[in-house]
């Protein structure tokens, strides 16, 4: 492009027209958002029960006390710390387990049939089993065996979460692995790479990149479900909110815990969106 380039009149007209449309659609969006917002606000605050709802769901004093703990109620923040630790550990373990199972499921050859069968049985069972039941079985069943060195119920509950989410993640990983075209494997093998090195250097990098959005999505789901560990006895953020709610007969603690969970999930959701967008851009680079 040179400095002497001058857009044609038609081009200028086109640019001006586009700008006009853009401004118009932005204004329209702002207007409709404002209208919907005002209507919602009026609808909610104008309803006859609004004062009561506000008192029992949005009480600032109760929110602060539930957050920091008071009297003998557990604080939501200390419960949240348990959630955060569980999230990090369970996510890491579930991703590792899922990848391992996916690789086992995609092994070739008749000798490895038992391994494949076991891995398949695992993904079938644990994707079907409700997490609550798995937690009950692990946290109440395993200590019932009274074996030496049984870990604490928190560890057992975490294991239940890892095993359940490992099954979902394994299927996502497998979908990724199988989406890599066979010609890639053939090419790698013809270059003299072993099966293992083919997986490591050719298949898995492509596979994981392709399934990153669904993997992250499952991770967000896991973040919320770690709270189910409270079934086994430990007090997590939601249980702390429940105890505060029972003590104060006010639902504000639930709202507080809900907001905290959303804040916790936001970074991961943001990353998911960004990764998805980037992948889409790269794939459609020509368009």
């Amino acid at each position, binding site marked *: 492009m040179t400095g002497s380039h001058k857009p044609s009149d038609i081009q200028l007209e086109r640019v001006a027209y586009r700008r006009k*449309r853009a401004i118009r*659609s932005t204004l*329209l*969006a702002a207007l*409709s958002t404002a*209208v*919907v917002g005002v*209507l*919602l606000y009026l*609808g*909610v605050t104008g*309803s*006859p*029960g609004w004062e*009561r709802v506000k008192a029992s769901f949005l009480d600032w004093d109760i929110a602060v006390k539930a957050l920091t703990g008071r009297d*003998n*109620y*557990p604080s939501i923040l200390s419960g949240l710390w348990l959630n955060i630790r569980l999230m990090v550990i369970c996510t890491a373990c579930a991703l590792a387990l899922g990848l391992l199972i996916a690789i086992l499921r995609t092994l070739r050859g008749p000798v490895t049939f038992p391994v494949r069968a076991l891995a398949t049985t695992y993904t079938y069972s644990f994707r079907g089993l409700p997490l609550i039941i798995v937690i009950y079985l692990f*946290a*109440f069943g395993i*200590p*019932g065996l*009274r074996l030496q060195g049984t870990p*604490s*119920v928190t560890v057992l509950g975490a294991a239940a979460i890892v095993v359940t989410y490992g099954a979902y993640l394994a299927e996502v990983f497998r979908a990724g692995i199988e989406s890599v075209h066979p010609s890639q494997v053939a090419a790698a093998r013809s270059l003299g790479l072993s099966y293992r090195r083919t997986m490591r250097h050719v298949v898995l990098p492509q596979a994981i990149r392709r399934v990153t959005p669904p993997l992250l999505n499952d991770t967000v789901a896991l973040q919320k479900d770690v709270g189910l560990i*409270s*079934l*086994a*006895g*430990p*007090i997590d953020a939601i*249980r702390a909110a*429940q*105890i505060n*709610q*029972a*003590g104060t007969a006010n639902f504000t603690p639930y709202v507080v815990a809900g907001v905290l969970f959303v804040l916790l999930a936001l970074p991961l959701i943001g990353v998911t969106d960004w990764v998805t967008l980037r992948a889409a851009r790269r794939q459609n680079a020509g368009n």
Partner: protein
Amino acid sequence: MVSRFTLLTTGGAVLALAALAGCSPVEDNAAPTASASASADVCPAGALPTKTAGKLTIGTDNPAYEPWFSDNDPKNGKGFESAVAYQVAQRLGYSPDNVIWTSVTFNNAIAPGPKAFDFDVNQFSITPERRNAVDFSSPYYLVRQTVISTKGSKIANAKTLADLKEAKLGAQVGTTSYQAVTDLIKPSNQPSVFNNNDDAKAALVNGTVDGIVVDLPTAFYMTAAELKDGIIVGQLPQVGVPEQFGLVLDKGSTLTSCVSTAVDQLRQDGTLAVLEKTWLAGSGGAPELQ
């Protein structure tokens, strides 16, 4: 240009609003008021308008369980509720000879309809719902919270609240039991909280907690019928809003106020406290933790 998406979302919001307006809340009904009727003077000793003139008919379920009754025989005056029933009868002017026991199942006693008893004693908790169908006397027992455990556990021999400090305790969420753990015992370990008493019991059996807190009637039932090697460690001091047991009378019974007065007197002169000590905290019962 308004895109179809904009239309869709706007339409959705409008629909949501319409739904919101549609479910305007139901206003509170006036709380049902328990009608305390009849003046105190209409309780002539031994001559109340009972089922059988000159006799007092008292109902309870069969079997009648320890320690509320003894040997499934309400007539022997043993067990907490049998003793309370005879004391109430005495106050009303009926000697033990003039007390007739009749067997009425728990559910029948609180169902609406004609009653085969003058009053029924069967660990009935006083609730507003039940008040719609029957009358309750003043409470004769405020349910206490109790620590239970299993034989050989490290708190099996606890005698005081301080002995429970280091224990890992469990309770059901949102209950007076949980409140008793955090307000009275204040253990140094964070207590385990369960969705229901069955989960807490399972954790106790597994040994993931040293003891659980339940109300006294539940404690008796769990340790006697449900837990192998279950033991009652002891009763805790009164905490929170306790459940109350009341005598059940027919809805609108003319005896209700007389029976209530009798129960009130038994509370005031300390008789109820003595009976509680004798039958609930005494031998084989649940000792008190201080």
